[in-house]
């Protein structure tokens, strides 16, 4: 399958600490590439480097035919790299629909056209409605986002990411704090998104990761110790000692 994003030896240091240390990985269309590791292993920093939220200390990121290493976050987002956040990052005081509509508007900004009403912007409304439908929030469109349940906020987080019509999804713990039923729904959603997207999944729920991931990269202290198919990762001696522990050995 075709490589969409190729990260080569990404590093990021904070003071003397190497939060991400020469990490290379690629994301392919139609694949879920999971990154696992203990707290502080540098997984979220990795997402921030790929999305452009943090500048690299060294390394190179290619997206399709472009070298996007020097691109700003908004430019990467418009080019099709979407992300969700580990800590829910939504527009609390806006309606659920407006959360998605505003995200969709990023593709059609034209801020100088002040005579056009944002609420009647047909293009962004339609994309927002589709994103809500896909994320299973269509019946909550008029609710104020801040009043949603935790699980629904996590769904909205994904819907907002989808509303930017990304080709690449960088998902930072989409299952965090979700109940069993919500987890199932989210996994079904990720499964359905697989075909059209290249997905990077950061997740602590190991059962979910092994069910959905096509490849798994294991990080310890900012560095990659293994990257392989799920079955091989399960049996990888270093991974077993470093991370998975007795339960999965």
């Amino acid at each position, binding site marked *: 399958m075709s490589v969409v994003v190729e990260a080569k030896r990404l590093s990021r240091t904070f003071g003397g600490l190497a939060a991400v240390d020469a990490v290379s990985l690629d994301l392919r269309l139609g694949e879920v590439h999971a990154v696992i590791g203990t707290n502080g292993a540098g997984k979220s920093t990795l997402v921030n480097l790929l999305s452009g939220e943090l500048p690299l200390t060294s390394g190179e990121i290619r997206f399709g035919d472009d070298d996007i290493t020097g691109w700003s976050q908004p430019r990467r987002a418009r080019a099709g790299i979407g992300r969700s956040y580990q800590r829910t990052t939504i527009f609390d005081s806006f309606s659920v629909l407006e959360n998605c509509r505003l*995200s969709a508007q*990023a593709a059609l900004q034209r801020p*100088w056209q*002040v005579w056009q009403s944002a609420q009647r912007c047909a293009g962004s409304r339609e994309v927002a409605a589709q994103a809500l439908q896909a994320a299973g929030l269509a019946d909550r469109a008029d609710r104020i986002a801040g009043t949603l349940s935790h699980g629904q906020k996590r769904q909205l987080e994904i819907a907002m990411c989808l509303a930017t019509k990304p080709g690449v999804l960088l998902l930072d713990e989409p299952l965090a704090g979700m109940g069993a039923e919500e987890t199932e729904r989210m996994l079904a959603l990720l499964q359905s998104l697989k075909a059209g997207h290249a997905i990077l999944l950061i997740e602590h729920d190991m059962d979910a990761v092994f069910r959905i991931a096509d490849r798994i990269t294991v990080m310890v202290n900012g560095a990659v110790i293994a990257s392989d198919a799920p079955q091989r990762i399960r049996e990888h001696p270093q991974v077993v000692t470093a991370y998975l522990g007795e339960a999965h050995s």
Partner: protein
Amino acid sequence: MKANLNHWLPLVCALVLAVLGPLLSPYVSDLVVKVMILSIFALSLELLVGMTGLVSLGHAAFYGIGAYATVLGSGKEGGSIALLLPLAMGSAAAYALAVGALSLRTRGVYFIMVTLAFAQMAFFVFHDTALGGGSDGIYMYIRPALGALDMENRYTQFYVVLVALAATYGLLALIRRSRFGAALAGIRVNEQRMRAAGFPVYGYKLAAFVIAGALAGLAGALFAIQDGVVNPELLSWHESGAVLLMIILGGLGPLRGAIVCAVAFTLLKELFASEGLVGPLAAHWQMTLGFTIIAFVALLPRGIVGIRLRRGAA
């Protein structure tokens, strides 16, 4: 019903003012013009604080620069308002571009301090150099005109300022409902998410900052034309603080809050400074106004427009 009210109320107010204009006594007419100019100034800051979430404590710099540009540009023969108003707005916008480009790299309390610092810089340029007559300021020899529109005429002044206020209000109302305004609201609520969605947040904030500066320049120009004299106090941080206080008291968000509070502020000031009404307290109007403001903040946490909101929500 409420949406209708929001649409029609400003228009009705503008029409009532337009009809009443010629009937007002010179004193009242002057006062109304003053309030309208202050309203334009307050609205310009509302674009930054209420709509974009950028709390600037240096907004009077743009107001003062607009005022000085108008007086300096009018010369001894008086100028044309068709040239002077764009000159004032352009000068203020140019300074706003420079200030915004640098200050928008900071946020929160640092943004407040940096905007204040830039305003103080502009203040001391006018205060300590001969450019604008130093600390005494300068007089306008003759008010500008444009054909039959002679700003020496009280009625012309009234209608030009009314049109400027209506245009400012209209522009901001348009911005609020547009995609630009939606993006500014998004930046106010969650800047990080806006960047993640693909919005060049810095450019949006800079655009808002420059538009706000230009509109403050317009208010300053109209002030200079009405008053006929400018001095560095126009750029002082007291002015910046007063207009910020005004829009916070008015209630951030709805545009009419800025105008309602400009009216209330001016009327209270007139009231507390009038010896006929408050006797010897008139000499201490700043104190009575101060207590009134404290009472407002304590009793109306959502501002003056919040009164209606709360009743509506109940």
